[in-house]
């Protein structure tokens, strides 16, 4: 029996003395506000105060906490300083998904206890041990610095264009938010996936009779033992059958009570392995087929041919680039639980795509779609990595077979090994321009390592040729992108679907052409920028909302100021870089509808049934603002029924930067429909003023009694035309545009990069909630910095968060965001999307700045210090 003093209350705990304090808090005291992202001290999500000092609860054995005073996030609200910090985080938009927030708050509490008005540097040092993958840290720093001096202002009512705090924000600050690992029935069984430790192997599974737990295998799957993103490509097994195609491939699962399952050693598993040689994407082109369906190991190829005769060119630039596997690095590893209800199954947990999960679970169990209910938990970051199913099918199978609730929580290494990654790309590209700097042609050949299974590989192969020339007028384009299978982890969807990799090549070529043509690098881009009325290389005429030129013009003064401010020192050279991007919002040339529903009951309860999963990006708030504006009542009047396949209509997945645009347009339509229904009843004109106070609806000041529930439903499916064999069509209804500047210093002797500032101009059509948009921009930039400078996933070698490096609070410089609003008539109140666009230009802008500083061209990515140094040496 150990006594702990938690948030001022004494608790007696019976647990082994070596138990991690994080586990004791969560599993024994039900204080699940303390999060676990790694159990290794690397993420800081579990940060608590132990006698006032910040500590990773995952590294404190229970015995060492005996009789000590522990403060967790649940104890903050009761302390004036804690409450002030929570208020400041909310006001600054410092929590997105919220999984890092408890740790951030606790680290900040230690600081503020001694330093009420910290500097930015003091804040960075104090919070340096907590990782955040969503925010880019800048708003967190601001929130901490302002915590003790927050002016007491009332937020605006929340009209479109106003920054209101996230509607789902409070629970993220108090520890009450329930993520995938935070709930499960007490009697739930524990499921432990067993994965191949080899990149490529045959295996056989013998009798598991000797094990104290059940071993689920392919033979236990009642329905189809496979899943996959595309309706016609279900190539990944729930449990592989005798053949494993990557390290992390799931071959079986242990099922039993948790302690028993966790004590089973590898050596006791009745699995015999025959390791086979690993096959890289390069080797795969001449290797035997990994899947019979793709004999040449080419999963998918995307083409674009546009322009017949190539105009005469004066200057040409060429290059070859290689990028790496990049991990999503959401701080919340996959977790959830499932339970059988008669002939139905419920699956709870973190996901970006509940409706796709539903379809997969139904097929794997062999039951009808309406027998499956997916109830998403809060999602501690996704970025594309929680679009594919992970635990859902196997939990469903286990719960189905046993009739018991079953839960699982992936460990960090398991999450890293098993989940999808950003495609490593090998890119060869060339481009030409005429003497005046006008682009004449662009050629692109991209080989994307799509890993062991299809996942979103075809999407990447489809998206890249459309985007690879960037948002420019290029008369002649030849592009091919291939997704090539290998025995690497499946590459899937990751913020940008292959476009960030392509942008690195395209923007590097522009810099060279600009130099050759004697043009300023910003002016070169402006000269070639797409504008309203231009026709893209897919043959789509963009009638509206091409905001690139406005972005570049907004950056111009910053460009000149930053360039003028470059100061070189003995070891360091300063540089300023620029890059642009465009990004098609929504699925490529494919239907991707969303439906939103509003109801107003006779009792005056206004309910928004919103199936769009908010994975931290803010859709819950933004869609409510849109629906509110269309309806004519403030967001505060809304009750929210959020994403649950049993309660909400299909809003599609949270990906492709589509929720604001597609679901937003549906929310607008729903708001308009309900408004029309109300006005019809009241016989009022279109400009009538609505109010809802204490359950009484008034129209132009007159109460309107309802005898039945009024409903407004809206749907939207962006109009597109599928691409033909030459990549011609209307792939997207609209595009986001952006340009970013990066100012940095390069250490000429060590090859280290020291970022000074990023200025980001983004055309978002309309910023529904500017502070949330800024949050997306800053978070995207942070991930772009990671992609550019440090992130490289190597299976089996960087399988934790101390070898796989993502940016910390000290790696993201000051960011200035300029929001450009080139109205998109199809979008809700003119809005487009921002989730992915934010990331795309950052890495190319950084490489442009490195080239500006040193003349070195970065072609091997990430630009780790030794690679930068090598590039500098080659550059001269």
């Amino acid at each position, binding site marked *: 029996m150990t006594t702990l003093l938690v948030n001022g209350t004494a608790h007696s705990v019976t647990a*082994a*003395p*070596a138990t*991690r304090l994080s586990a004791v808090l969560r599993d024994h005291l039900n204080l699940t506000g303390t999060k676990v992202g*790694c*159990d*290794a*001290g*690397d993420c*800081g999500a579990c*940060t608590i105060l*132990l006698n006032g*000092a*910040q*500590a*990773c609860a*995952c*590294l*404190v*054995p229970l015995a*060492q906490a005996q009789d000590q005073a522990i403060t967790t996030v649940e104890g903050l609200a009761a302390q004036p300083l804690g409450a002030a910090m929570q208020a400041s985080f909310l006001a600054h938009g410092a929590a997105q998904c919220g999984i890092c927030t408890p740790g951030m708050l606790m*680290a900040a509490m230690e600081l503020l206890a001694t330093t009420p008005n910290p500097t930015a540097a003091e804040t*960075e*040092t*104090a919070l*340096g*041990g*907590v*990782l955040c993958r969503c925010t880019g840290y800048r708003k967190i720093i601001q929130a901490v610095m302002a915590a003790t001096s927050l002016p007491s202002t009332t937020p605006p009512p929340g009209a479109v264009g106003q920054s209101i705090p996230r509607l789902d924000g409070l629970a993220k600050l108090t520890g009450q938010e329930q993520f995938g690992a935070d709930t499960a029935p007490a009697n739930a069984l524990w499921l432990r996936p067993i994965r191949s*430790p080899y990149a490529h192997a045959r295996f056989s599974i013998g009798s598991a009779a000797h094990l104290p737990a059940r071993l689920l295998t392919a033979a236990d799957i009642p329905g189809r033992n496979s899943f996959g993103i595309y309706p016609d490509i279900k190539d990944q097994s729930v449990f592989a059958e005798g053949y494993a195609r990557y390290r992390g491939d799931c071959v079986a699962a242990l099922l039993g009570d948790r302690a028993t399952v966790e004590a*089973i*050693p*590898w050596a006791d598993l009745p699995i015999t392995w025959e390791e086979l040689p690993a096959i890289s994407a390069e080797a795969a082109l001449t290797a035997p087929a990994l899947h019979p369906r793709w004999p040449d190991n080419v999963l998918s190829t995307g083409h674009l041919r546009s322009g017949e005769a190539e105009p005469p060119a004066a200057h040409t630039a060429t290059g070859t680039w290689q990028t790496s596997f990049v991990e999503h690095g959401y701080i919340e590893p996959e977790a959830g639980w499932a339970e059988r209800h008669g002939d139905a199954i419920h699956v709870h947990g973190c996901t970006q795509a509940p409706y796709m999960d539903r379809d997969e679970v139904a097929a794997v169990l062999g039951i009808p779609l309406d027998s499956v209910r997916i109830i998403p938990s809060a999602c501690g970051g996704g970025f594309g990595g929680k679009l594919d199913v992970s635990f859902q099918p196997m939990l469903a199978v286990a719960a189905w077979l046993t009739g018991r609730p079953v839960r699982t929580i992936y*460990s*960090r*290494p*398991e999450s890293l*090994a098993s989940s999808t990654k950003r495609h490593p790309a090998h890119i060869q590209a060339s481009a030409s321009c005429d003497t005046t700097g006008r682009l004449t042609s662009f050629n692109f050949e991209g080989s994307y390592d799509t890993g062991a299974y299809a996942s979103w590989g075809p999407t990447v192969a489809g998206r890249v040729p459309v985007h690879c020339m960037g948002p420019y007028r290029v008369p002649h384009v030849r592009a091919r992108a291939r997704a090539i299978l290998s025995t690497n982890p499946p590459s899937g969807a990751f913020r940008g679907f292959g476009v960030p990799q392509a942008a690195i090549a395209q923007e590097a070529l522009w810099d060279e052409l600009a130099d050759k043509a004697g043009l300023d690098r910003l002016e070169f881009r402006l000269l070639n920028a797409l504008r309203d009325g231009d026709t893209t290389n897919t043959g789509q005429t963009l009638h509206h909302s091409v905001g690139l030129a406005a972005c570049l013009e907004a950056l111009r003064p910053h460009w000149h100021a930053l360039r003028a401010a470059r100061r070189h020192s003995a*070891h360091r050279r300063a540089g300023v870089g620029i890059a642009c991007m465009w990004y098609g919002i929504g699925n490529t040339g494919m239907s991707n509808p969303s439906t939103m529903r509003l109801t107003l009951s006779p009792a005056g309860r206004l309910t928004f049934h919103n199936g769009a999963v908010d994975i931290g990006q803010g859709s819950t708030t933004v869609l409510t603002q849109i629906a509110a504006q269309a309806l004519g009542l403030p967001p505060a009047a809304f009750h929210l029924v959020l994403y649950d396949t049993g309660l909400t209509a299909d809003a599609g997945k949270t990906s492709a930067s589509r929720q604001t645009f597609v679901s937003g347009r549906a929310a607008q339509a729903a708001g308009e429909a309900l408004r029309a229904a109300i006005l019809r009843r009241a016989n009022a004109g279109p400009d009538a003023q609505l109010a809802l106070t204490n359950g009484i609806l008034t129209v132009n000041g007159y109460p309107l009694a309802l005898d039945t529930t009024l409903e407004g439903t809206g749907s939207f499916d962006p109009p597109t035309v599928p691409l033909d064999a030459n990549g011609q069509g209307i792939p997207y209804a609209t595009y986001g545009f952006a340009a970013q500047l990066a100012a940095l210093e390069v250490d000429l*002797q*060590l*090859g*280290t990069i020291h970022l000074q500032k990023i200025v980001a101009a983004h055309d978002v059509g309309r910023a529904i909630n500017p502070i949330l948009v800024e949050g997306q921009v800053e978070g995207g930039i942070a991930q772009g910095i990671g992609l550019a*400078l*440090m992130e*490289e996933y*190597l299976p089996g*070698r960087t*399988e934790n968060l*101390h*070898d796989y*490096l993502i*940016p*910390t*609070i*000290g*790696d993201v410089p000051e960011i200035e965001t300029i929001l450009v609003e080139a109205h998109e008539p199809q979008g809700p109140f003119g809005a487009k999307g921002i989730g992915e666009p934010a990331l795309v230009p950052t890495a190319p802008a950084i490489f442009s700045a490195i080239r500006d500083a040193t003349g070195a061209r970065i072609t091997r990515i990430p630009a*780790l*210090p*030794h690679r930068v140094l090598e590039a500098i040496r080659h550059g001269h």
Partner: protein
Amino acid sequence: MQQDYLRPTSLEAALAALPGRQVLAGGTDILPAEAGAQAWLRHTPRPLLDISALPGLNGIEASATHLRIGALVTWAQLRRAALPPGFAGLQQAAAQVGGAQVQNRATLLGNLCNASPAADGVPPLLTLGAEIELASPKARRTLPLASFLHGNRSTALAPNELALALLLPLPPATARAGFLKLGARSHLVISIAMAAALIHVENGIIQHARLAIGACSAVAQRLPLAEAALLGQPANPALLLPEHLDALTPIDDVRAPATYRRHAALTLLRRLLETLA
């Protein structure tokens, strides 16, 4: 299955219980390693001996000749201590080990006993001429740090021995020291290479120089050739030459290739000398 776990409150009891058990101090090396092993079901729990409740081991004490750092002293304690300038390198290292949470709990001695080639504590302690005090039930002995560290994850600790303290001779009052760490991000990073220096300059001439490099060999090393090259000379970074680092044996790994490490080590050393001169 409960892991065998002892948390004695006297040194005698601890030493008596030691054989066959793994010592646990801050746990910041032990617990992460367990998580990595558990992920692939390779975890074999070892009996643990938690020394955190032992009395008298959590102080930094100065005598006329030495600084004595107890086995439970954390990086945060060390970082905050008021120490003469000769300890600046060690304190700079303390401020760069992990993040604040790790510094608050991890011990300096744990860093040494864990014997990672990238242990940030080792280079500055080598320049300080640190000795480590070991206790077994029957005896105490003191070893120079360089003899204590045998290799990657290997030390002179006998199965019945506990490290009790570090003994650091006080450097000359005018000595200056520094530490530079190179990693691929700003916080929470394992070093690609690090350098420590302690020098003493009089009338512009180096009277005393100790230099060490970490993460470029199985155990961090002093650089006698480089030190000799500096003695009696004005502090000039150009005196440090690549061949002075010939004894290093850096490896290629996920963080950097060997050639880069070697180059970076020399660069870090030269910069240190520049700032200390």
